[in-house]
């Protein structure tokens, strides 16, 4: 057990910090400090490409595919420095963190050649098509249909909560390709280009006034037959594999964004006197402790090299951060007081902390609600009886 970094690792930290800070004070200073996923999308696509050009796009990937074969410690360091420099979140995080690793793990050599270079270069932006209206957290009840026709997959149906679909190039979708199949059987995992007449993307405005999420409609949408990952009927297996990547190193980058949010709360409390309130002090201490424990939980999870075994830290991670961040949003508003309820400008647009308060209500829902997470923890982590499906 060792928490410190070696001199080589500290040197790598300096290299990351220097480069990132140089970009954020130089060519890309206009995107520094953005905290939503939607603002300045075009410039952020340029940033993705810039990262790719300089080999910082996907350092954990194999060198052969544009990565650096970075060690865990290096990935931790990069994530920390990325956020510390005020770099905004990756608009291609789905491509880098989910689609790429899924193709690496389950794709053919041809698929790797076709997709990975574009993702690594920041020129192929991916989004995710799992949820459907009426299905919510229940991936097994997918109804979007796929059929093979003339060497192409033809897809009909609707996905929802497709984050950033409006600025993406490709979408991966789970489709039902076996007529009459039910639950996890008969599903196939496809990758489809978004720019085609058969696909329409409509924004969903959220409670914070922003529109990160979309509904995506498929009407005889098409992709080549070999855009399928795995085989026909393997969709469930691939989707589950992909979701496991969600608990990867990317969690550390997310945590650094949380660090920035908490720091902003601390600064606000110092500025407006809330820092003198013993009740607020206790809550800030709890938030600080929670964030640190999230970091060490993630390191424990990532240091666990026996990935065949689902460990407690990995299973509990989603509900832990989502619940922590929701509390953080409430703390932020209690620190700000009524000032937090007033927008700075003339539009219904919110600064980092009020936006955190509003947006964090979604954290405990998307990617599996807290309720679903507790089922998973109890059933997989504690081997308790499974919640029965009904037949409605």
């Amino acid at each position, binding site marked *: 057990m060792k928490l410190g970094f070696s001199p080589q690792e500290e040197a790598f930290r300096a290299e990351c910090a220097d480069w990132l800070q140089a970009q954020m004070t130089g060519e890309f200073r206009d995107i520094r400090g953005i905290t939503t996923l939607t603002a300045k999308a075009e410039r952020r696509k340029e940033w993705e490409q810039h990262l790719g050009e300089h080999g910082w796009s996907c350092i954990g990937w194999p060198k052969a595919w544009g990565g650096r074969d970075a060690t865990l410690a290096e990935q931790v360091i990069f994530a920390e420095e990325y956020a510390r420099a005020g770099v905004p979140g990756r608009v291609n995080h789905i491509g880098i963190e989910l689609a790429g690793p899924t193709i690496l793990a389950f794709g053919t050599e041809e698929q790797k050649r076709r997709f990975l270079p574009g993702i690594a270069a920041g020129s192929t932006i991916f989004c995710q098509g799992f949820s459907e209206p009426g299905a919510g957290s229940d991936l097994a009840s997918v109804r979007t249909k796929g059929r093979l026709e003339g060497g192409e997959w033809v897809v009909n149906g609707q996905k929802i909560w497709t984050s950033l679909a409006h600025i993406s190039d490709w979408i991966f979708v789970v489709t039902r390709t076996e007529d009459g199949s039910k639950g996890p059987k008969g599903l196939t995992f496809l990758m489809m280009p978004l720019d085609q007449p058969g696909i329409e993307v409509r924004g969903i405005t959220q409670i914070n006034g922003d529109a990160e999420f979309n509904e995506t409609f498929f009407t005889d949408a098409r992709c080549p037959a070999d855009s399928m990952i795995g085989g026909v009927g393997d969709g469930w297996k691939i989707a589950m594999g992909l979701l496991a990547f969600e608990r990867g190193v990317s969690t550390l980058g997310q945590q650094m964004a949380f660090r920035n949010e908490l720091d902003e709360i601390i600064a606000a409390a110092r500025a407006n006197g809330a820092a003198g309130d013993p009740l607020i002090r206790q809550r800030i201490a709890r938030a600080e402790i929670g964030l640190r424990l999230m970091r060490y939980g993630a390191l424990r999870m990532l240091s666990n090299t026996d990935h065949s075994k689902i460990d407690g830290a990995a299973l509990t991670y989603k509900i832990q951060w989502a619940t922590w961040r929701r509390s953080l949003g409430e703390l932020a508003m209690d620190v700000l007081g009524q000032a937090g309820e*007033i927008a700075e400008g003339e539009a219904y647009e919110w600064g980092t902390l009020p936006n955190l308060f509003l947006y964090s209500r979604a954290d405990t*829902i998307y990617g599996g609600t807290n309720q679903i997470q507790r089922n998973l923890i109890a059933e997989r982590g504690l081997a308790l009886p499974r919640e029965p499906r009904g037949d409605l």
Partner: protein
Amino acid sequence: MEFAFTDEQMMIADTAFAFFRENATSDRTRKAMAAEGIDRELWSAFCTELGLSGVGLPEEHGGSGLGMVEFAIIAEAAGARVAPLPMLGLATAARAIAAGGSEAQKAEWLPKLISGEAIASCERVAQLAEQGGRLTGTITPVPHGALADVFVFFSPGKAWLVRADAPGVTVAAHVTMDQTRPFATVTLEDVLAEPLADPQAAIAALHAGGWICLAAEALGGAQEALDRTVAYARERVQFGRPIGSFQAYKHRLADMLVEIEQARSAVYWAACAVDEQSDEAALALHAAKSFCADTFFMVAGNMIQLHGGIGFTWEHDAHLFFKRARSIQTMLGNGSFHREQVATMVLGEAA
């Protein structure tokens, strides 16, 4: 000793709930949110057709007598629809004028406020320079500040009536998180203010009115949020079952009802204690404001959570409840302020 509604109170409840259910629709509310933040047509109908705006205000100035219990019933009904109305000004400013204003002030303002011709707003002032009956300073945030015709401003031991059209009054409207009750900043520069004749009585009345109004709104909002979530739980199918058949989901709803039932006791205890001038009134008011605000926030947060993805869209009404709940929490003193007042009553001053 009978802690249940009288037949007359039941009738008021039926009337008010039916009125708001029919008229304070989501569509109308959203139109008001996109505009100035008040549904003026609804307010006018409430004041004139329904004729309940005078509840708790003196009959000689157009009010209908009755008390805080009846007012709480109405605020509960309006709160259940998150109605974008200047109810709070009626609970605070109008009551302050009725309790502490001069006869001339009452005669001028109460009939207009009760008929809906004028809108009132009220806020505590932190720093204000007073010189020769003229006020200078900035007051923020003022609920409905940009829409009010008359303000009651107060600080410990002092209360003034300020006309919105008086020279030197500037108002800046804000985009507010809860768009159903927008804030403004009011700036006074050497503005002629009329002191209220009995500021102590005015301040006591506006506090009692304001706290009960917010507590009752919160109660109504929480009950409605629960009812809508229960309805959704019975309909919505996931994993082949109505989601309301999942025990964890059921228990969450049960916990919501447990809090709401207490909030209901709190509102009507406080209202009744004020009407009966009970020794418990002060404690009851602090209890009601803090408890009901917390309950509403908890329930509205759960409303979002238990609706899943749809719950955090702009299209669904859940966020209206949630934002109103947040705004009630901080308005007129947050929870820890009110609990500290209760602590002082039972423990004495903090060292």
